[in-house]
């Protein structure tokens, strides 16, 4: 039986590694050129959950922005989950991710959100302090990932998928 699909959106500032994370996670159906032309690229991936069930995720990789315009808000419609992506080497991208989460709440008040702090392979150059992440974990799940090395990517998507099932 085909598992039910859920729509999730990738949100984050420019260059934080959203597309790299998706590329690491999913089979690419469409060209990355859609990101520059249409502003979004959609792919899908089936995730195996801890309970043995499967969850299909339809991943909307929205082009990197520091704020959401009307078009991007329309891309968010109907999403069940959000993957907020920040670049650990740029603390400002963490603030942007939080801002994007706040903006999206007006449209998706009940959407599950998971914060990914990317570029774990460059951890020695991180600007984001561990204490900040500890504070953030009180409000939403935070995972450290490396799109280059693949560390934490599968877990991040599985975390969100699990929350969607709950």
């Amino acid at each position: 039986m085909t598992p039910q699909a859920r729509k999730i959106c990738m949100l984050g500032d420019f260059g934080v590694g959203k597309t790299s994370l998706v590329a690491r996670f999913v089979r690419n159906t469409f060209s990355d050129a859609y990101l520059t032309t249409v502003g979004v690229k959609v792919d899908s991936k089936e995730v195996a959950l801890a309970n043995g069930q499967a969850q299909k995720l339809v991943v909307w990789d929205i082009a990197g922005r520091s704020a959401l315009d009307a078009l991007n808000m329309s891309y968010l419609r109907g999403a069940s989950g959000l993957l907020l992506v920040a670049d650990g080497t740029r603390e400002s991208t963490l603030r942007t991710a939080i801002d994007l989460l706040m903006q999206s709440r007006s449209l998706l008040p009940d959407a599950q959100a998971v914060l990914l702090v990317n570029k774990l392979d460059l951890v020695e150059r991180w600007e984001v302090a561990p204490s900040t992440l500890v504070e953030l974990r009180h409000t939403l799940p935070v995972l450290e990932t490396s799109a280059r090395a693949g560390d934490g990517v599968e877990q991040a998507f599985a975390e969100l998928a699990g929350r969607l099932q709950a």
Partner: protein
Amino acid sequence: MSDLERLKHLLLADERETLLLAEQRIAALEQANQELATLLPSLVRAAPQEPMTRALASPVAAALGNAVHENRASIIDALFPVIGPIIRKAIAEALRGLMRDMNQVFEHGFSPRGIRWRIEAWRSGVPFAQVVLKHSLNYRIDHVFLIERDSGLVLHRASSPGLPELDADAIAGMLTAIGQFVRDSVGPEGDESLEAARVGEHLLWVLDGPRASIASFIQGVPPDTLRVILSDRLEQIHAQMAGDRLQGVDQAGALQTGLDPLELVAASAAMSDRRELATSKSLRWPVLLILILVLAALTWHFVRVERWNMRVDALRAALATHAGFLLTDLESKPWRSLSIDGLLDPDAVAVAPMVEAADLGGVRAQLRTLGFVSTDDPVLVRRARRLLAAPATVTLDARNGALRVQGTAEPAWIDANQARAGWLAGVRSVDWQVRPVDDGSARRNAAHAELTGLAARFEHDHVSFAHDVDSDAVSAKVLDQLAASLVRVAALSAEFGIPVKLGIEGHTDSVGSSETNRKLRLARAVWLRDKLRDRGAPAGLLQQADLGEIAVEKDSTFRGASLRLTVGASGP
């Protein structure tokens, strides 16, 4: 407590308690009623969906009916923003369908393919509609997706057998994103959306509903009925989704979509068949009518053009034969414009009146002429008359450049123009036959000369007498001559007005007395007058004649009588 009070207490204790309880209950109900107004919205929200909607359905419908009845303006104001777009969309859909139908009718009716299909239907005996259907149904529905409009998630999908597997969720999502992108780019405030896209033989149709969209991936050229069928399916799906009964991805499996590609093709073909059969008969007359109208319009056009061409040809022929005009160019646009270029001799008759007289139906011809010298005979005559200033008594004629001038004219004019005529442009030779004007002086002079001659003859022609007044035999002949001469004198004098004076004289010899001789001379003069009168000499002339006697010259022997004529000047 008095006895009465005690008694009342004993008798009415139960009733009093009941009354008190009733009063308390009424107070509680009033309190609850007051609080109900504020609590009602939250209570409605908290109530179970199904029984609440079922309970409210009837009063809400009645209330809505009441509101429509009593407060129509408010309802119209509220619904207007919704109804307008719906009506517009319905009209647009209907018009689009009409245009497609018309296109199809024209395409099938007049295109080579349509004619080929008609021949095939005629040869095979199969109705034309079936032939069209057979040829038009060369399409295939590869995939049909039912997509949740907001999220872009796939609610249902169906594909034709034998096609490779595809990521329907990603495709549906991307399609939704592109649709939103297009809508946002073209008109973010409108309800318009991406309806179709074509890449070569592949066609994508998207039909949007309020909650879900149908996306069909088609190969070939589908009939319009397929869109109708898909719209119908979409409406049925929305009917199932209404009332939150089947909403969202989780309940999508319960939907009866009817979106199987083969089933859709079959339904579309059946509808096409019914429609073609229903309309094929009614289409004949309109097509025939259109054909007749087209033929009539073409005939009218050709007749009109032919009428114009005939008129222009007639004008062209008239211009070609117009003396002194050389047609160099004629541009004609039927019933729109006429442009004439040519060379015109200044002495030729003007061309413009002829062009204006041509019946061109309100078209004003443009005439442009340049000057030149023509050798046409009529122009040659006009030029000669103008340059020679020929009087009315002179007629001019030309043939092949030979100018003939004839008539009478003043000698001065003749002297001035006879040599000049040969120098006129276009004149090869001159036939000059102009006589000077005759004023009668020559004949008058001749008459004067004749009279003078007669006067001279009268001096020699005498009548001789032997005695007294007896004339000799010779004198009778002389008398006849004298009488004839006098007739001529009277005629010439009268014709040319030359004054003459006749004298009749008698002569005697010197013998005898002078008195006797004088009487004899007078008698001889009278005798001669009478004799001449008897011989027919003009009486007037004789009557006015002087009867005289000539003094006798010494030794004169002549005895007789003679005439003496004095002629006046010949000029008037």
